[in-house]
């Protein structure tokens, strides 16, 4: 145990060889979260409407104000304009054609997602108007949302970035420092040292785990401070991260061992971290996207991790389709990663052929 603690202490001393790399790897996801939380999609959309002169137009504007969530924000922020040109976005104008009134929405060069959002909002506003006109004939939709409140997207987005923060810190620092051992020639010490290599690897993994937890905790704190929503169990969230951190550490260390160069190691850590984040339910629960996306997403370790974390942020609601299978999947990935790391370490460091 004493030898392990000495090795661990030595591992932590390597922080001094690359403090800036450590700080970047630990803080970058938090910085990204803070910046992206500002531009994150929000349900409230600005809609440019040509200032109406008729009483019908005034009723339309009143209907626009009705479109929204009873337990959340309004969905339309009307911007009254005089110019019927759509500019780079859109404009709604009430026009008369053959004695009928029409709300004409003209779009600029925008994408199908924006068209969908603007079209839906206009339809919702006009339906309000139509329902008022229909009176008792109009159909009422009684809403039964899953949760007592509409939870801001920034909560999910931040929660899904916690695994990214942990992964990036572990993989990047693991890969970088391992590659540095080759670049600086200190790998020779590992070849010659009498200590058993599992102990050396255990010290490295432990250190990377602590670094990864630091990155994840910082992001967690900012998530809570920005959204005001905290998980119901702090410890559970971080216990769930352990398999992912081990997998990331193994991938990072193996990248350093294989490439012997810090730049490709960094590239591998970066590409895998972002690919896992994006495909691994980073933007929404996998089940909410296309079937093929869900199937691929379920192969990524981030997806079961996020599904396990979900209840701790969302009133205890379970979303894991097969919790036991997800656990087994993570255990399998972790064991495979550890075995792969041992194999690569033996081949690249201890092999007599080298």
């Amino acid at each position, binding site marked *: 145990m004493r030898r392990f603690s000495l090795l661990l202490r030595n591992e932590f001393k390597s922080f001094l060889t690359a403090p800036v790399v450590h700080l970047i790897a630990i803080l970058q996801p938090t910085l990204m979260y803070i910046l992206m939380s*500002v531009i994150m999609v929000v349900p409230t959309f600005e809609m440019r409407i040509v200032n109406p002169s008729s009483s019908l137009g005034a009723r339309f504007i009143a209907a626009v104000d009705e479109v929204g969530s009873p337990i959340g924000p309004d969905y339309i922020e009307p911007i009254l304009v005089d110019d019927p040109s759509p500019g780079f976005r859109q404009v709604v104008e009430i026009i008369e054609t053959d004695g009928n009134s029409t709300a*004409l929405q003209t779009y600029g060069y925008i994408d199908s997602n924006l068209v969908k959002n603007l079209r839906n909002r206009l339809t919702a506003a006009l339906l309000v108007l139509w329902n008022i006109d229909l009176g008792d004939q109009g159909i*009422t*939709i009684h809403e039964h949302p899953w949760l007592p*409140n509409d939870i801001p997207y920034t909560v999910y987005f931040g929660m899904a970035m916690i695994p990214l923060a942990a992964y990036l810190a572990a993989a990047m620092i693991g890969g970088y420092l391992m590659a540095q051992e080759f670049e600086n020639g200190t790998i020779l010490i590992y070849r010659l040292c009498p200590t058993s290599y599992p102990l050396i690897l255990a010290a490295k993994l432990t250190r990377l785990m602590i670094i990864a937890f630091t990155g994840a905790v910082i992001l967690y704190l900012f998530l809570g401070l920005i959204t005001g929503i905290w998980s119901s169990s702090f410890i559970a969230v971080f216990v769930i991260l352990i398999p992912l951190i081990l997998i990331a550490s193994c991938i990072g260390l193996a990248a350093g061992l294989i490439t012997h160069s810090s*730049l490709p190691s960094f590239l591998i850590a970066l590409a895998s971290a972002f690919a896992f984040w*994006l495909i691994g339910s980073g933007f929404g629960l996998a*089940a909410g996207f296309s079937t093929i*996306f869900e199937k691929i997403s379920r192969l990524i370790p981030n997806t079961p991790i996020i599904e396990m974390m979900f209840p701790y942020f969302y009133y205890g609601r379970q979303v894991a389709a097969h919790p036991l299978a997800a656990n087994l999947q993570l255990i399998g990935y972790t064991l495979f990663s550890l075995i792969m790391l041992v194999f690569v370490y033996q081949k690249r460091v201890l092999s007599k052929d080298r």
Partner: protein
Amino acid sequence: MRRLWILFKTEFNVWRHDPITAMGGIIPCFFILIAFALLFGGRLSFPIAVINNDQGDYGQLLVETFPEVISPLDNQPYYAVLSLNEDEAWLAYQSYQIEGIWIIPEEFSERITAGNEPSIDMHFMNYNDDRAKNHRIYSSEILWAFYHKIGLEEPLLEIAEEYPLPEMVDWVSVISIGIVLLSVTLGGIFNMFILTYKAQMGKVTLEMGLSPRSLAWVLVPKTVLATLFGLASGTVFLVVIRFWLGFWPGGNLWAVWLLAGLVGVFWIQVALVMGLIARNYMAGAIGSVLGAMIIFFVGGGLSMVRAHQDSVTWIAWLFPNTYAVDPIRDLVLFNTWPVDFMPVLLKLVGFAIFAIFFGSLFSVRKLRKLD
């Protein structure tokens, strides 16, 4: 000129020894493109169950309306109604296998006929307020179509739409152009880093610093080579987009190269400074690459800057990517000449000159060991 050519070839040979690193502009961008294509390129209909308890015909008419109302996002219905019995539906809903359940009550048709406050119960997911919003506004589309279908009296206001082009550009295409620009940026950064890195590892920086000639002889070939590789990375993605999504700038390719190249020059100078000035070389590399990634996300990589101008953060405006991305979209996606081409070009030239001036200043001071 011959000296420049020799130095250029030397730098090129340096690059040839680490071709995997030169893929830095391609590998991360490729993963990002695939990820977004998987996220937003597939069918995005909300899977729901409809429990139709209606004793009359209107309930069935409503169920038949769901597949008829098409979303412009992916030209698929807003809702994919799954055939589940009531127990299966609730089980699937509780484990988030479906997005929602609509329950049509027994007396639905009767109430519609009598004009007596017909209603529907809608159970839906709201773990994310944006998805909850979609449920509410999608349901309006369904009711709007249903009202027309059953022949209720005409609405006070009908809906009409006008588009600037006969075809709509989808979201993945918009993102793909952000990725082209990211690829040029990362390609330039990575290649500049490998060139400065090799110089440091080969310990030739001292020779450079002691050179009696101007250091421009060293810095210009590196910058030109890194810019060319950045543009090559971006062009690879343009070709991918051409064959996958069908967009190509055609005769305006030079304008795309010009705008993207100027953005690349800015980031290459940042990389040069970070590579030479940062005490730890890799810290500079990591910092500038992750910085470029952040700017991709906040500077119009995922949506059009012009259409969301108010939500662009001030930090994004400090980088050229935010200005360049929409004119490049005009050229590639819409095949139109950007109305703001000249102002954007001047801004990008300004960014490039600023970066070259300060990049060279700092790099020369570092190489000459004046600091």
